[in-house]
């Protein structure tokens, strides 16, 4: 039963005596306005010559002067187009379909443009594959307006050069007779593959090396060995009934990501059924947080467990030691899988050829419905061997020309020093990148490249599923994309657009219309693709230089299953601790480290923004002496740890992570970038230095380092005052068998000495909202994976300011929508209570001495729940009644309005809000050098949504339920003289949620999806006992706890 569970956001809350937790709970604003800073300094005050009279004089004068100055309005110029583009109507948004394919993120998306400026990323619902934009893709529109972008080609020394100089140098070098190498990201692009092939044909000593910063080498090689093509299996988790994952963060960036929407569909209980998800992992990942059962296990044991699973399913035995409780879980799983073989799917994220080979074998053996090897994905094609051999050739001085595009090896290679040594021996190196970066600094020329929103391109994300990338704005600067440059070097007069059109008309479209494909953004080919060029470029098998061979990862080309199982079963533990490197939802491989939205985005698990960190289990932290402590202003401090892998050391702050497998630590990629970055953005440490041999599992020596790190961690901020019933959850069994009153309990209050449901008692008279629209939002805790795409979408739509690390630490972050993460112990505490009652004597089997130690530490392996919280738009809103100036008021349509220009900043409303969703503008966050983010420069401001106000200092702001969007939908309908269709009502978060967790609509339209969801048994309101009658409702989280 849900009510017996204790939920907590931070380890500190488990300690009943923590005064800071209590203070944070009771105070909406932890810190007062820091008047002490200027009033507390007595000496300065006394020594100043300004007396009270002077002060009043100045105040009076400046007030008079200001009001006089206000009398004369400024002259505003309006400059219309000379020739207006046909499709642009000022004030009306246009949408264009395009594709992001930056080598890490691949997605078919729509771009909303206003007056020609891209301002927002939306999901492309026509796309059957990768049509959902994750947080990084949502934020990528801001990277277009990065003020630190290169505005034209430069030399390696940082001087401006012209494109002609680079072109001439490259053309001259191509003929030098030495090797020419293209070192690029994964394009998965038919046109680029064809172009590179043609470039290769024109220059026989040219080779193309694809490099992924975060490699999927093992999975790619295993797939290639089995199916003869360098690609990745495509999984459809919607079809899976049992999902077993060994360290695969498939809701994150595992194998290119994009699996979350299918997964979520299978997680919503329909006719009593939902998938069962068991996760074995070391780090607490987003995927593990969503699992029904999560087993904290180091990679070493994950391998053994995988071997055990394979052997058992195969009817043999593998050997190897695994902990007893893990074996029990596995046995249960095996029994379950045996009942429903094709409904099960096994995945793994361990960079080990044996693991990946066994995973493929298991899925084939099960004939899993979720497993698609026939139409695989091409989103990772990097070839580690080819990269290493290229570096070896470079060091040997064999390479004459090196063209780099879309990758930053000087930052992301673990052996960047080798690369540097190599590139210095290359005659000419040209680095294509949007920003000045580490690699640009060591190249001959830094070629300023287009952002993807300025580029033409295409992608084959999955075999037969094509997407087109079209520019949504003309190049802002003097930039040129790689492909256009190659065309130029080949002496072609064609633009890359012409080239793509030719490719598509010849090889892809099979007679379909090209313009239609551009309009849709996606095209699914019906037939089989036989043209070898179109197979993504990954199949290039490079002759590997002998001297490079020793650098390679030691894997035989074909791994026999038997030997793989043997190796796995005998997997050895790490020396010292085991480090698992991972990518964070917000930062990925770090390409967009300069994006303030992503920096400010709190990680879904740790709730830390502006940092990466070492995650350590509580037990290990105690042994090693690491601490996390909360300080009075609500911030969190942590110790530093020094990590050493094979002599390479990195010092990073420590986060004690509930659920981290004992003996393991985690560290995320994507941080620690320095070159070409604003100082505020230079956060975290570079984990790629530890990414040796491109393996995400490393043996690490860990010691405590000096000092304390100040985190910007929001996990204890904006708590709901210790009130209960925030999260409601139950198990599938109870959900299926018992009445909803039992598992979705409505809190009772006493009225006239009678226990009645809290929802039936009211202080206010009810307002009739049955006429017109009445907006409601439904949030399904089962479908929400906590990915955070909605948070960034809200940022972009509503011009939410970025406040920086120091302010986030003081709980002054401005997110209108936060995703609360709650931990709870696996089962109820009742088990512990029984055990405690059964203690018999001090020692012995039931002795209390050992018994108390055995009592499960709730933070050892907690369950996790995510809960997006925004303004609940209460029908009986506590904020409205306390506003002295009526700045916040209620509408008939259910939205709680906030008139910023009326607000005087008393913050009474924020104090009175039980959900803590109101945000106060402590400072002016635009045009303020103290907050030097995108709103402080003209370029960055181009992302601002013109339909939403940019708030000033001293006012409260909060979620408006995207009233600008609902009003637009209503107006469109009025203008056309029709009713509003259900799907037209969207908020930024609901349209960003490709998982279907957030649904928005009009409940007075009985046919609408949200009206039906409101009738669901799982529906509940947040803090029903408070009686606020919110217009946002949640669905009880159901976990599938079927053990066998």
């Amino acid at each position: 039963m849900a009510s017996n569970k204790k939920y907590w956001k931070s380890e500190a809350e488990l300690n009943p005596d923590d005064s800071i937790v209590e203070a944070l709970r009771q105070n909406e604003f932890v810190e007062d306005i820091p008047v002490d800073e200027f009033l507390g300094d007595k000496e300065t005050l006394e020594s100043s010559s300004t007396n009270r009279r002077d002060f009043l004089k100045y105040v009076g004068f400046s007030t008079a002067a200001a009001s006089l100055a206000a009398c004369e309005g400024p002259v505003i110029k309006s400059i219309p187009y000379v020739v207006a583009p046909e499709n642009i109507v000022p004030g009306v948004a246009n949408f264009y379909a395009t594709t992001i394919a930056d080598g890490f993120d691949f997605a078919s998306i729509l771009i909303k443009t206003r007056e020609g400026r891209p301002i927002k990323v939306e999901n492309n619902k026509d796309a059957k594959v990768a049509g959902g934009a994750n947080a990084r893709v949502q934020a990528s529109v801001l990277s277009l307006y990065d003020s630190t972008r290169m505005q034209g080609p430069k030399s390696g020394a940082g001087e401006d050069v012209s494109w002609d100089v680079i072109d001439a140098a490259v053309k001259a070098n191509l003929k030098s007779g030495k090797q020419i190498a293209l070192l690029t990201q994964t394009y998965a692009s038919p046109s680029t593959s064809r172009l590179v092939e043609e470039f290769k044909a024109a220059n026989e000593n040219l080779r193309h090396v694809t490099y992924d910063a975060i490699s999927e080498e093992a999975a790619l090689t295993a797939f290639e060995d089995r199916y003869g093509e360098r690609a990745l299996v495509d999984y459809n988790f919607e079809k899976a009934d049992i999902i077993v994952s060994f360290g695969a963060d498939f809701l994150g960036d595992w194998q290119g990501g994009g699996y979350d929407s299918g997964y979520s569909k299978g997680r919503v209980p329909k006719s009593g059924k939902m998938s069962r998800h068991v996760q074995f992992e070391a780090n607490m990942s987003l995927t593990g947080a969503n699992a029904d059962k999560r087993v904290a296990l180091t990679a070493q044991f994950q391998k053994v467990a995988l071997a055990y699973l394979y052997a058992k399913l195969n009817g043999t035995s593998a050997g190897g030691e695994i902990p007893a409780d893990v074996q029990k879980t596995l046995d249960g799983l095996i029994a379950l899988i045996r009942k429903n073989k094709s409904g099960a799917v096994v995945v793994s994220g361990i960079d080990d050829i044996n693991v990946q080979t066994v995973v493929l074998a298991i899925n084939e053996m099960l004939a899993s419905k979720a497993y698609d090897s026939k139409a695989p994905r091409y989103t990772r094609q990097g070839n580690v061997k080819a990269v290493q051999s290229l570096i070896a050739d470079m060091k040997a001085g064999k390479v004459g020309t090196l063209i780099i595009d879309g990758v930053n090896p000087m930052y992301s290679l673990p052996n960047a020093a080798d690369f540097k040594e190599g590139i210095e021996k290359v005659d000419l190196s040209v680095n294509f990148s949007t920003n000045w970066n580490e690699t640009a600094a060591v190249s001959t020329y830094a070629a300023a490249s287009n952002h993807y929103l300025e580029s033409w391109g295409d992608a084959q994300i999955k075999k037969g599923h094509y997407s087109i990338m079209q520019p949504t704005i003309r190049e802002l600067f003097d930039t040129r994309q790689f492909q256009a440059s190659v065309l130029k070097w080949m002496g072609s007069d064609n633009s890359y657009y012409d080239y793509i059109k030719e490719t598509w008309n010849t090889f892809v479209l099979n007679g379909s219309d090209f313009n239609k494909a551009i309009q849709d953004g996606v095209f699914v080919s019906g037939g089989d693709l036989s043209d070898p060029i179109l197979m993504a470029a990954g199949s290039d098998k490079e002759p590997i230089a002998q001297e490079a061979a020793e650098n390679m990862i030691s894997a035989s080309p074909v791994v026999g299953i038997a030997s793989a199982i043997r190796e796995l079963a005998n997997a050895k533990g790490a020396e010292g601790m085991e480090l698992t490197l991972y990518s964070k939802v917000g930062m990925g491989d770090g390409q967009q480290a300069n994006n303030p939205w992503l920096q400010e985005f709190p990680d879904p698990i740790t709730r830390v923004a502006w940092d990466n960190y070492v995650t350590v289990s509580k037990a290990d932290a105690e042994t090693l002496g690491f601490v996390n402590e909360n300080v009075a202003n609500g911030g969190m401090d942590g110790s530093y740890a020094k990590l050493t892998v094979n002599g390479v050391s990195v010092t990073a702050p420590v986060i004690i992570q509930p659920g981290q497998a004992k003996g393991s630590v985690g560290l995320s990629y994507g941080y620690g970038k320095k070159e070409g970055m604003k100082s505020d953005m230079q956060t975290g440490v570079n984990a790629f230095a530890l990414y040796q041999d491109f393996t995400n599992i490393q043996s690490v020596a860990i010691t405590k380092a000096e000092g304390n790190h100040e985190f910007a961690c929001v996990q204890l901020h904006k708590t709901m005052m210790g009130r209960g019933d925030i999260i409601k959850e139950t198990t599938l069994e109870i959900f299926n068998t018992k009445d909803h009153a039992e598992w979705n309990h409505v809190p009772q209050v006493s009225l006239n000495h009678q226990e009645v449901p809290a929802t039936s008692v009211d202080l206010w008279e009810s307002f009739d909202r049955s006429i017109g629209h009445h907006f409601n939002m439904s949030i399904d805790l089962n479908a929400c994976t906590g990915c955070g795409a909605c948070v960034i979408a809200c940022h972009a739509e509503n011009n939410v300011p970025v406040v920086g690390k120091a302010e986030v630490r003081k709980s002054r972050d401005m997110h209108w929508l936060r995703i609360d993460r709650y931990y709870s112990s696996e089962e109820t505490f009742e088990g512990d209570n029984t055990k405690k009652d059964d203690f018999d004597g001090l020692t012995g089997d039931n002795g209390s001495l050992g018994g108390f130690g055995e009592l499960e530490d709730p933070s050892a392996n907690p369950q996790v729940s995510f809960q997006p919280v925004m303004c609940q738009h209460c029908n009986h809103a506590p904020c409205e009644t306390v506003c002295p100036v009526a700045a916040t008021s209620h509408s008939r349509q259910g939205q709680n309005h906030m008139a910023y220009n009326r607000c005087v900043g008393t913050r009474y409303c924020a104090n009175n809000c039980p959900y803590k969703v109101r945000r106060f503008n402590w400072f002016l966050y635009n045009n303020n050098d103290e907050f030097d983010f995108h709103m402080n420069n003209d370029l960055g401001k181009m992302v601002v949504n013109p339909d939403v106000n940019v708030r000033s200092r001293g006012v409260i702001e909060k979620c408006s339920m995207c009233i600008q969007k609902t009003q637009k939908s209503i107006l469109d309908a009025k203008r056309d003289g029709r009713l509003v269709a259900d799907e037209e009502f969207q908020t930024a978060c609901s349209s960003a949620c490709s998982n279907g967790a957030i649904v928005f609509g009009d409940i007075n339209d009985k046919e609408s999806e949200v009206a039906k969801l409101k009738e669901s048994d799982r529906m509940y309101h947040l803090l029903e006992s408070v009686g606020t009658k919110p217009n946002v409702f949640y669905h009880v989280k159901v976990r599938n706890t079927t053990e066998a």
Partner: protein
Amino acid sequence: MKKVTYRNQISKVLGISLVVFLLSSISLIAQDEAMVVEPAATEDASGGDATKGKALFNVNCAACHNLKKKMTGPNLYKVEARLMEDEGLDREWLYKWIKNSAGLIKSGDAYANKIYAEYNQAAMTAFPLLSNADIDNILAYTAEEPKVAPALAGVPLGENRGGAKASGISNEIILGALVLVFGLLVMMLFLVNKTLSRIAEASGIAMVKEEARTRTPIWKAFARSQFLVLVTVIFFLLGSAYFAYGWMMQIGVDQGYAPIQPIHYSHKIHAGENKIECKYCHSSARKSKHSGIPSLNVCMNCHKSIYEYSGNGEAVSQEDLENGYTNEFYTGEIKKLYAAVGWDEVEQKYTGESKPVEWVRIHNLPDFAYFNHSQHVMVGQIECQTCHGPVEEMEIMYQYSPLTMGWCINCHRETNVKTEGNEYYAKIHDELSKKYGVENLTAAQMGGLECGKCHY
């Protein structure tokens, strides 16, 4: 930029109108004469009616042809005679060409192909519906000597100015005379008084002056009465508070704001005299929140062929003359447009060198107020003039309405929602009007007063 308050404008207009009134009779007569002088219907030698021809020409040809000037097509002054002289082509050829130029080009006619090539292969529209007689009429019109814009011929500029001056002086004289008369009256009264008192003195009647000395002066009595002082002070304070409030509420309200624009664009000529629909140029008012300042290509839709202004042809009003709104002035403004859009008048093509016009924005709502034109224009079916005033009479555009929140709210309270034939309103209007017990709902009753409808 110049900022003229609305009230000043009115007083100025009143003053000027007096002057204009004095002159109006003269100009009216001049106009009548001009009408009479215009040749009624000159019969051409070949039997065409030039008046009818003019009408036909304006409807069918004027978009691309001018009598004296090369435009999209060649100039047509005495086209027939010229054709005969230069090419030896007769009227029959012209019939064929006008009715189906493409056919003639196809048939391989040498001159037809030549002229086609000369004008950038822009095919002339075929006019199969024009009869031979119509074409005769048009040709008769083209054969006539085109009237050189008789703008200033009728009323010579200098003379007119002189007239204006003269009338000004006469006014002053009248006023001066009046002042003189008053002065004389005052003097006479004074003299009479003096004479009378002298007579009285002579006849020995003493002037009674004691009364005044015994009575306390009224201001002293007033100052002694505390009540009166209090009331006066209160009245005074209230009064000044009233005016201070009124003045303060004017801050930020730019009603009557009429800045000088980079191009003198006259709404009076476009929307008033030529009756161009507002939304022809401000087309985005139909679908966007912005009414939009028309891009210059919209101007060029008409101004490609309207290269000079001759609207003042017959009679320039005194007011216009005073302001300098002559034909030359307006033509000069059209040239400014050409310079901005990069239109080469001689070559009849765009040079590609454009210079966007920096208009001064007149109506400017603060950023925190959301206003949508299409909502009001299309859904509410409100005339543009409701908020923008008599634009068709505005020579210089100014802000007619205060654009304050009170002004918005007032209208929302008073205006009924236009629900007829709009399916969106069908259900909600039914239910709501029943609830409120009214026939027609106002915008306010529909929720048009809620803060969040305009502030987000």
